[in-house]
């Protein structure tokens, strides 16, 4: 029987939200092909009970403490072993830092096609069919993948996690010993203060050259904090100028994001920037130039001095949150 293998990510022993999205995608595929979903959990995770809720029929758990951090070779070996045990299989991962690294490794080991960073995946006319934005979203391919096995990585925030009344039995699995090339993740450095990544945030406040100098990004940090759970992004111009880290860059040579709300502050709207954020559900633009291209794609525009507007916006949102 056809099977879909969803690779579950954990951080510090907790299943990541994006994995519920990957499971939801896996469930829809399995329903189309009348197959089953196996959730593969790598590393120590205390609670795997949500995995059934989001669509798994079965949970295979490799509890090995050595897999607490992402170890490319061991993760690839364990995933490939499970995939081979599943029969004709479609492997689904999230297109995160981990999935973008692991997906290609698995496809190479299984000698099979990979569709990376897809925004939709369905089973149509007997084949896995995906949409994948290219040129940072300036165009979209619809691709049909020939047969199994195959590997699909799903872009975060593309597929809303869907809960179902289902429970899955957990079985233990083991990681095959990997005599392969020596690559070892020794630790994860976390910056002071929990930083939310722009690729994962549901609300992004982004700044451009209009901020005039790096210190003024404090205005956006305050706005993001007032909103709560918002990330601060940046345009290429200010990243190239060294004001903000590259990790925060939104656009064709940065990250492609699809939050519920994107607030562009002092960003003119260059084509390479717009490519990276045009899939936001709602776009707000704040800019002093009423002819800036960003207003052509924004749902709501505010024309004027950002140094007056942004603090007021922060204030009003604080009142709202307090009220």
């Amino acid at each position, binding site marked *: 029987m056809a099977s879909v293998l969803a690779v579950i990510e954990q951080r510090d022993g907790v299943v990541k939200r994006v994995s519920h999205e990957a499971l939801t995608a896996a469930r829809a595929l399995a329903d189309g092909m009348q197959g089953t979903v196996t959730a593969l959990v790598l590393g120590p995770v205390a609670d795997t009970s949500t995995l059934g809720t989001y669509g798994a029929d079965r949970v295979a758990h490799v509890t090995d403490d050595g897999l607490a951090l992402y170890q490319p070779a061991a993760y690839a070996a364990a995933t490939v072993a499970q995939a081979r045990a599943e029969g004709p299989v479609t492997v689904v991962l999230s297109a995160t830092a981990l999935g973008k690294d692991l997906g290609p490794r698995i496809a190479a080991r299984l000698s099979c096609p990979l569709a990376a960073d897809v925004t939709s995946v369905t089973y149509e006319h007997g084949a896995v069919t995906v949409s994948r*934005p290219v040129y940072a979203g300036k165009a979209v391919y619809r691709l049909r993948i020939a047969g199994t096995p195959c590997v699909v990585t799903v872009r975060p925030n593309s597929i809303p996690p869907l809960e179902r009344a289902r429970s899955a039995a957990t079985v233990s699995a083991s990681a095959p010993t990997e005599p392969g090339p020596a690559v070892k993740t020794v630790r994860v450095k976390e910056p002071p203060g929990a930083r939310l990544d722009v690729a994962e945030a549901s609300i992004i406040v982004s700044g451009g050259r209009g901020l005039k100098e790096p210190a003024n990004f404090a205005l956006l940090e305050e706005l993001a904090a007032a909103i709560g759970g918002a990330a601060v992004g940046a345009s290429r111009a200010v990243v190239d100028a060294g004001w903000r880290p590259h990790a925060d860059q939104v656009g064709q040579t940065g990250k492609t994001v699809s939050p519920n709300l994107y607030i562009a502050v002092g960003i003119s709207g260059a084509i390479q920037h717009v490519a990276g954020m045009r899939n936001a559900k709602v776009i707000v633009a704040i800019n002093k130039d009423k002819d800036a291209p960003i207003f052509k794609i924004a749902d709501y525009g505010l024309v004027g001095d950002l140094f007056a507007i942004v603090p007021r916006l922060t204030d009003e949102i604080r009142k709202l949150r307090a009220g």
Partner: protein
Amino acid sequence: MKICVCIKRVPDTETRIKIAADGKSVDEAGIKFILNPYDEFAVEEALRRREAAGAGEVVVVSLGPEAAQETIRSALAMGADRGVLLKTDIRSLDPLAVARPLAEEIRAGAYDLVLFGKLAVDDYNHAVGPMVGELLGVPCVTAVAGLELNEGRGTAEREIEGGVEVVEFALPALLTVDKGLNEPRYPALKGIMAAKKKPLEVKPVELAAGGVDVLDLTLPAERQAGRIVGEGPDAVPALIEALRHEAKVL
């Protein structure tokens, strides 16, 4: 140190994409092509490592059409020693089909270090580099934004969501590199002149069909321009009202 850098010819990021008549590919008429921006970091890193070692060779390899010779020349102008074009007019959407001939070429070169950009800004696959790493069976680290190499061993830093992974590996290795690793140099006029005389070997390759079929390529629906809520800070309450009750995102 013998270093291979894999590079790709891609449309300039300022390009507006048009769909070709077949409905399945990009209309290349009038498009300016450039060296993939992430590959510039890879070329720069290779040059710095060669310069630091005081000896060695930097070879650029590209898979693509005849015109990719220009892309290779731009890397030679930055300072790479020689180039190899694996020439094909087929554009495969299956990254493994692209990785195989590259792996074959690289295997024959016996390199200490193989560098890729972390992704190409056209296909956005993030895939060919790690696939080549798997095919070669060498240690591979992707999206490297910090790198130390010392006596056959390396430590790389790669950005993950909300943090940085520190990864140790042994050489020979394959790395895909991220923006932030270095600041690529601009080719000097002297370099551009010298590049014209550097060796560039063209080898035709057969690309396998691969397992990915294009159904169509379309432009995303244009976003409708919304409305200007107002001017200046006094318009903020109206904006919040709209975000709460109209868009329902706050």
